[in-house]
């Protein structure tokens, strides 16, 4: 262990100046990354992960500053270096990749010139640099590098753009690579590919990596060691397996329990939450940073700060009671539920919504693009239907068709309670409109920021139930309190609320008209896991109480599995599999579902064999002939059905009672292939 670490942070303190006052973000953060090691950072939004990452690059926002400690790169303190020296380091030894690759590339310069720039900075001539850029793209497994070099950023898909950014970061053969949420926002299948790539490259190059993700599954698969940040302080650190198997800080324990992990289902398990919210930026603490939310907190936790204690080997936790962490009591709601669940078993009632033969054609640059193709689904009273599929598969469009926000093509029918609904919203009556509501991913955009929370919900009540103004205000208060938005916040405006609270307001509004069906389009994707757990619990409660049905869209398969009774898997606007949550997740699988499921990094650490989907999602304007999956299908080759797959589109057929699939291979054969 005498080797100099590639990166070492020693007692690092960082503050942001807001309105003239320095507010501390990082508190006494110390850790080190050995050459070739992958170190992961986890923690809720705002705990300072990105700040630490950018500090390591010495690239803080204009109002950020290092107020103490040091950052050593191979033993040299970069805090004291001149700008020129830091630029030299960035040119030759440390690189960074961060979220949102599309904006990380300059929109007006060709991709090739941007990659070549890195080589040019190191003194290579322009023409040599371009040749090297081509190699760099080949290295990140871009199929047609010469072509890609000539493109602009907007002509690349998200996964491709991230490959280019990674190519650029690796171009200088860095000894340290900082990755801040490099796959957040990418599709599960694309994410899996990018992660595979990073792992391979790391094996070849031995680059040390600082890897940040809010996704614990990703961290578990990518990192040798993990650090948990809370309120800017490192609260636990250890080898990945140790930390995940034996979390020893109450915050880590809570975080892991919030996740709807494999096998949990709403009918039997309630998700844990972490009560309260993270402290505001710059809060000062006399005691433990987590004391306000910790169920184990004792008097001394409030008054004195715990030091790191060793759990085992290099596994450390900053807690007075680390040996009791695993017995952290489950959150209070949990107990309440346990007594309830015995009496109200979950059951699905008769069919409420019937969607048949929905199609949607958009005209794009003069082409006809069939984004939804003959989709038929049913939804029962009190049932949750999950919609999953890669981006562009048509999930949101189906939701819009059902809600009447866009009209289906001739022949498509949406009927509620056996009664056919008008195609578009403006031709539906108040009752039909109120019967179906939607909750969006981003509550910021969905809520009018000038109105108070009560007004936002009250107006919806007024409109949908023709209540008087005072009645609707009363009802709004009732709804908000039911969603656990405290009375003191009812006059607040959306900007004053956290993301989770805003989403609760949006849900309250959706429930204003006592809806029969609520469509939830990625309702928790922008939220932290602890907040997500609380929202999911809330939705489950509402369903139990009012027999509300949900159509639930999410790219997070764990969430969909937890909350759904039945699941429809979509590919290129078609339902390729439809069945109970149980069936879809346990198999036999449709080949596409199989690949999709295998791309999810499992957070319990179990290794699942990846069934890769080759190539990219084809454009719906020019779908492949035969089965639309056939150019990418992992099961087609050697199945004996190749010609059929390439020439004829399979029908959605019932392969087992209540389990539908669109595949030429008989289910028994699939089962055999998949075992």
């Amino acid at each position, binding site marked *: 262990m005498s080797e100099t670490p590639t990166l070492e942070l020693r007692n690092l303190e960082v503050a942001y100046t807001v309105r003239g006052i320095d507010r501390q973000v990082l508190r006494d953060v110390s850790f080190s990354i050995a050459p070739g090691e992958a170190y992961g950072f986890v923690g809720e939004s705002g705990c300072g992960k990105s700040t630490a990452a950018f500090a390591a690059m010495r690239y803080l926002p204009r109002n950020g500053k290092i107020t103490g400690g040091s950052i050593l790169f191979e033993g040299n303190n970069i805090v004291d270096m001149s700008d020129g020296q830091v630029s030299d380091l*960035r040119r030759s030894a440390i690189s960074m990749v961060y979220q949102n690759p599309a904006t*990380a590339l300059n929109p007006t310069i060709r991709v090739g010139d941007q990659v070549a720039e890195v080589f040019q900075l190191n003194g290579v001539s322009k023409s040599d640099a371009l040749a090297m850029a081509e190699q760099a793209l080949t290295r990140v497994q871009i199929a047609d590098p010469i072509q890609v070099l000539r493109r602009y950023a907007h002509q690349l898909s998200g996964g491709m753009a991230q490959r280019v950014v990674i190519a650029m970061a690796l171009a200088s053969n860095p000894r340290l690579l900082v990755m801040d949420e490099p796959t957040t926002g990418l599709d599960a299948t694309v994410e899996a590919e990018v992660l595979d790539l990073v792992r391979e490259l790391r094996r070849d190059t031995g680059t040390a990596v600082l890897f940040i993700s809010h996704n614990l599954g990703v961290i578990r698969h990518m990192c040798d060691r993990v650090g948990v940040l809370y309120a800017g302080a490192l609260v636990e650190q250890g080898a990945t397996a140790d930390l995940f198997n034996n979390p020893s800080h109450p915050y880590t324990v809570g975080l892991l329990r919030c996740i709807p992990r494999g096998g949990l289902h709403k009918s039997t398990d309630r998700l844990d939450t972490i009560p309260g919210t993270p402290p505001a930026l710059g809060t000062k603490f006399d005691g433990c940073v987590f004391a306000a939310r910790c169920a184990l907190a004792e008097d001394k936790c409030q008054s004195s700060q715990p030091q790191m204690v060793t759990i085992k080997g290099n596994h450390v936790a900053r807690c007075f009671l680390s040996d009791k962490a695993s017995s952290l009591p489950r959150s209070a709601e949990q107990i309440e539920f346990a007594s309830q669940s015995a009496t109200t078993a979950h059951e699905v009632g008769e069919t409420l919504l019937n969607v048949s033969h929905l199609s949607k054609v958009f005209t794009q640059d003069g082409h006809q693009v069939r984004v939804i193709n003959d989709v038929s689904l049913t939804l029962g009273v009190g049932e949750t239907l999950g919609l999953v599929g890669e981006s562009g598969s048509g999930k949101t469009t189906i939701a819009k068709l059902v809600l009447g926000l866009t009209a289906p093509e001739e022949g498509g029918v949406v009927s509620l309670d056996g009664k056919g609904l008008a195609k578009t919203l403006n031709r539906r009556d108040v009752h039909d409109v109120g019967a179906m509501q939607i909750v969006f991913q981003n509550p910021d955009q969905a809520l009018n920021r000038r109105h108070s929370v009560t007004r936002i919900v009250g107006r919806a009540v007024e409109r949908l139930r023709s209540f008087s103004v005072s009645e609707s205000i009363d009802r709004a208060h009732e709804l908000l309190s039911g969603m656990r938005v405290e009375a003191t916040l009812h006059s607040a405006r959306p900007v004053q609320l956290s993301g989770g609270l805003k989403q609760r307001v949006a849900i309250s509004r959706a429930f204003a008209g006592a809806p029969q069906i609520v469509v939830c389009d990625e309702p928790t994707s922008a939220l932290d896991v602890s907040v997500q757990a609380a929202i999911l619990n809330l939705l489950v409660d509402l369903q139990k109480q009012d027999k509300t049905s949900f159509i639930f869209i999410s790219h997070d398969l764990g969430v969909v599995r937890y909350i759904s009774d039945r699941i429809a898997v979509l590919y290129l606007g078609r339902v390729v599999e439809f069945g109970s949550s149980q069936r879809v997740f346990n198999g036999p699988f449709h080949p596409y579902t199989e690949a999709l499921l295998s791309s999810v990094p499992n957070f319990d650490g179990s290794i699942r064999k990846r069934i890769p989907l080759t190539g990219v999602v084809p454009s719906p304007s020019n779908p492949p002939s035969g089965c639309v999956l056939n150019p990418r299908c992992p099961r087609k080759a050697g199945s004996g059905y190749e010609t059929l797959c390439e020439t004829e589109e399979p029908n959605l057929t019932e392969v087992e009672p209540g389990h539908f699939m669109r595949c030429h291979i008989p289910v028994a054969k699939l089962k055999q292939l998949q075992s």
Partner: protein
Amino acid sequence: MKQYILKRLGLSVITVFLVAVIVFFLTHILPGNVARQYLGRGATEEDLVEFRRVFGLDKPLLSQLFIWIKDLLQGDLGTSMQYRGPVADLLLPAIGYSSKLAGVAFFLIVPISIFGGVIAAMNRGKKIDRVITVGGLSAAVIPEFVWAIVLVLTVGVTFQIFPVTAFPEEGNRGVLNQIWHLILPSISLLLVLFGYIARIARAGVIEALESDYMRTAVLKGLSRKKAVTKHVLRNALLPTIAVIASQVPYLIGGLIAVEIVFNYPGFGTILKGAVDARDYAVLQSGVIISSLVIVGFQLIADILFALLNPRIRQKVSE
């Protein structure tokens, strides 16, 4: 791309045509007996009839419009009622003079304003930023002709640095001297437009400075200066170009005011004369020409914008 240009060109032609029709009807519907005005009280009925016949005012309105447009298309701008000569003889030299002034002003205003905006953005929050932004906006509040008068009185009369007329004397009309005389009028335009253009340039640069791709550039190891010149300016100046084009109408408006103060025989001075004398033919042509210039610049700006922006370039060439 070709198609895009053709489409924009078509739209421009339609715009100018509509302007022409509107102007025609406005000038013909305005109250007042034109012939009587020109010929005075003493004119006989025959004189009036003769005047109307000469200027085509006796024909039905629609055929007047038709003839006027047909003449316009053939380059015939009509006959000035005031001077009884072809409008073209009057307007063309004036346009030449105005173009010179506009050209000098443009070459002064655009680089200085953009430079100011870039400097302000790079020093955001510092004193120099405040001087540029606040100063620029305050200067823009005061109209051109007031600036023109102030400049004439101070720099011209009191300090005698610049000449107080915009037009050199006979026999001394070398290019440099002409430009020299046009500096002061241009500065009064600069003072008014600087604030707007600098502000847009500043906003564009700040947005680009804060962009992820700028961060990428710096994290690649480019020095700040190099990152700014290579990655920021092009992206930042795109919106600025569009704004400059949209300022052309103001430039023309300002030009007229400044020409009058500096007693410069340009387009504005002629137009003002035409308004005073109700010389419709000159007015109509003047408006058409102004709209041609404005639409033309908008077109150039749009094409430039598309050329510099790959996203639009690709979209329009699809």
